[in-house]
């Protein structure tokens, strides 16, 4: 029976690979694959072929090379510290497995697997085996990916293979422990152990172990330095002493064994660590198989939720199980008559968090202004406030550049409703404008708050910034606030244009676990967005700069900044107007059924 299940898994995997290779015939996948492949090669695979240290061809004196190798390799006496960190991390993970779950044990089967396997004459134990083997295959893929990252941590020692197998053992142990814990918890629940009592018991037990180990620490061992600065060697020494003191050392023993292959400094150490690790995994396997309880009901429920979530995600929707389960008050009353664009704003605001209201924004502004003024009046306030202001400015730039990727309450979310929108008696530009309003409002609100933070906190502290007078800061802040909505709208036009002009590409970028081609495709989109934005912003900034240059001798810098802001606004607004009409025309001619045809 297991062979049939393995056949299913192997055949599915083979077909998946064949389908992925076949679709490379389409340019959108081929181009994405080339870019993604190049990314993987230059950032990961190339480093696999070269030993840690300077790149091949870089001529370095022997002394310098030795010094570099010494610098990138952790000293041998750091191994206990890394082991302590690793085992504590695993303890935290497994503690969650015992504390968090509230549902009955559910092995993760897909809806198709349930439909075919559950009614089939297959023993429950075979299903468990099938699931465990599937999980091992997934762990192997995950280990391969993690190896690509960890291989760059050359200071850990080991090599690509020991890292890959090390990750695999860690993931396998966690996976098996999760299944075993789920089954055991279900049994305990059936015996009458309530969730809160179980949590107290588990956390209390772990806390007792820590306290006992702390009490048994040698008195002469200095306490970890806390507060002013961190003495890393002293802190590591203390942590190692704690984790090797009973009873904590007993509790951490299996975790230490599991992380040992990954932390092995060379192949010999890896093989020495291998035996105990395999023993721990075997014990885990026996535990899971012996403790397996009836999981079918919970598995069906889990598969249905997962299927619905996946379907909603693929069609651009939200997760159906935790979103839109409760009706929400409208953000503002929508009258029967008036600009139809506002109806889209109203609709799309309803689709997002309920916090985007004038009241919340107003309160946030008051809090920021109050906190900023208070901070500046503190003894060490000016420096701290300026730091906060600097961070706020950086965050503002982040909002402008990356915000449109997060605020997607526009055409991108409504592409699945394109048929419906196209039956509305509205010209395309009105639909596009209406769709753009919600994310523009949201991102503008965030930008205004960050700009307010910068204005109330930033003040020149040395650095020859005395020319940045309060009036100039205020004028610059107001100018940026004025420009913010059009700049955000312009930014939003780019991904919306991508969705309308390349719906096939856009849909593909929503593919889950897409592999190199989808990563490459996302990279293409990102670079295209940055490039387009630079081209769109250039005229506005040239005009703004020219206005400041020409006017600041005549009307002063502050007034010149205000005039420049207006000039920038006019240019950007013109670009937005042209962009909206252009996209509107595209929306009117959009034929999704043709564009998405394979």
């Amino acid at each position: 029976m297991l062979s049939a299940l393995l056949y299913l898994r192997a055949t599915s995997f083979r077909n998946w690979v064949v389908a992925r290779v076949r679709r490379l015939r389409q340019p959108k996948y081929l181009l994405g694959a080339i870019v993604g492949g190049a990314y993987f090669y230059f950032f990961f695979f190339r480093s696999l072929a070269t030993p840690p240290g300077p790149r091949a061809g870089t001529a370095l004196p022997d002394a310098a090379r030795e010094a570099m190798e010494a610098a990138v390799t952790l000293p041998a006496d750091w191994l206990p510290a890394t082991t302590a960190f690793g085992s504590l991390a695993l303890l935290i993970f497994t503690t969650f497995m015992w504390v968090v779950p509230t549902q009955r044990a559910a092995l993760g089967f897909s809806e198709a697997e349930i439909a075919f396997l559950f009614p089939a004459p297959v023993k429950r134990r075979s299903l468990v085996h099938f699931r465990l083997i599937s999980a091992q295959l997934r762990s192997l893929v995950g280990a391969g990916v993690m190896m690509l990252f960890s291989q760059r941590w050359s200071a850990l020692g080991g090599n690509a293979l020991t890292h890959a197998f090390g990750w695999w053992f860690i993931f396998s142990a966690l996976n098996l422990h999760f299944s075993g814990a789920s089954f055991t918890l279900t049994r305990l629940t059936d015996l009458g152990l309530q969730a809160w009592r179980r949590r107290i018991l588990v956390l209390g037990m772990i806390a007792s172990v820590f306290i006992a180990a702390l009490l048994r620490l040698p008195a002469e061992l200095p306490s970890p330095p806390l507060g002013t600065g961190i003495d890393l060697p002293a802190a590591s020494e203390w942590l190692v002493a704690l984790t090797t003191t009973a009873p904590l050392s007993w509790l951490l023993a299996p975790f230490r064994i599991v992380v040992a292959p990954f932390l092995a400094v060379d192949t010999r150490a890896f093989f020495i660590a291998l035996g105990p690790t395999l023993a721990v995994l075997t014990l885990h396997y026996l535990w899971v198989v012996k403790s397996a309880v009836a999981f079918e009901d919970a598995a069906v429920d889990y598969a249905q939720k997962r299927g619905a979530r996946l379907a909603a995600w693929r069609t651009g929707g939200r997760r159906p199980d935790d979103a839109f389960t409760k009706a929400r008050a409208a953000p503002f009353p929508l009258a029967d008559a008036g600009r139809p664009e506002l109806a889209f704003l109203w609709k799309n605001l309803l689709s997002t968090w309920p916090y985007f209201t004038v009241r919340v924004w107003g309160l946030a502004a008051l809090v920021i202004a109050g906190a900023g003024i208070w901070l500046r009046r503190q003894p060490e306030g000016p420096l701290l406030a300026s730091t906060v202001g600097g961070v706020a400015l950086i965050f503002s730039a982040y909002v402008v550049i990356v915000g449109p990727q997060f605020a997607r309450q526009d055409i991108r979310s409504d592409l699945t409703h394109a048929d419906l929108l196209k039956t509305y008696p509205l010209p395309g530009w009105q639909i596009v404008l209406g769709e753009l309003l919600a994310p523009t409002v949201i991102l503008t609100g965030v930008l205004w708050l960050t700009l307010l933070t910068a204005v109330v906190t930033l003040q020149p502290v040395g650095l020859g910034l005395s020319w940045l007078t309060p009036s100039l800061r205020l004028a610059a802040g107001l100018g940026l606030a004025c420009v913010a909505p059009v700049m955000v709208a312009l930014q939003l036009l780019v991904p919306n244009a991508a969705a309308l002009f390349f719906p096939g590409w856009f849909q593909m970028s929503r593919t889950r676990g897409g592999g190199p081609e989808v990563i490459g495709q996302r990279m293409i989109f990102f670079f295209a967005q940055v490039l387009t934005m630079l081209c769109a912003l250039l005229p506005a900034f040239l005009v703004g700069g020219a206005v400041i240059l020409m006017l600041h001798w005549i009307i002063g810098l502050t007034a010149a900044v205000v005039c420049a802001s207006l000039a920038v606004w006019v240019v950007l607004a013109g670009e937005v107007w042209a962009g909206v009409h252009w996209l509107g025309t595209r929306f009117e001619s959009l034929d999704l059924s043709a564009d998405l045809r394979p």
Partner: protein
Amino acid sequence: MIEVSDLSKRYGSFTAVKQLSFAVRAGEVLGLVGPNGAGKTSTQRCLAGIIPVSSGSVRIAGHALAEDPIAAKRALAFFPDEPRLFDYLTVRQHLNFVARIYGVRDHEAIARPLLEEFEIADKADQLPGELSRGMKQKLAIACGLLHGPQVMFFDEPLTGLDPLGIRRMKDSIVQRARAGATIVLSSHLLHLLEEVCTHVLILKQGVKIADGTLAEVAARFSQGETDVSLEEVFIRATGGTES
């Protein structure tokens, strides 16, 4: 009300609809039938202005769809086989939104009887996620009827409805046609078409095989027999195959 002339729809090198011409007058119900892949949905979507035609022209309530799409769309409503609803708008909010888009004044006075007719008045504050498939369908129809369209397109209107819902939907279509609406519906359920439609148009591979009143089309394929069912007509007209 609906005038279609030489309508063609191509997807790349594939032609889904070929030079289709027909007209439907006020009060008529045209049944669009054909095997899978015959071009029924493409035709309906072209007529509703959802997808552009590749060539030919369409006039809805006197307005050319290509030249004056806004006026044409004000007069029509399209009901897809799968109700397309916004996950985060309640039943009432859906109607409010549609009212604003179509500029329907005092929409609540119109919406109330519609919700009652479709028996979803008590669900007014619920989200689509809380509604059954049939109720979602009813909400989609209520939204489509809110602005009083003169022309209606139904794509497989009975999908997902229970027997009572099917009965009511049929009555609703007939009632609206009697009130002067022009209706085009596509369905594989030939008994529905026999009950509801005044006219029928048979498509195969994007080409019109026959059109006319039910009696006219039946006569053409009856081969002298009397009382031939639409199902038999359909099989004879299409040769019993999809290709």
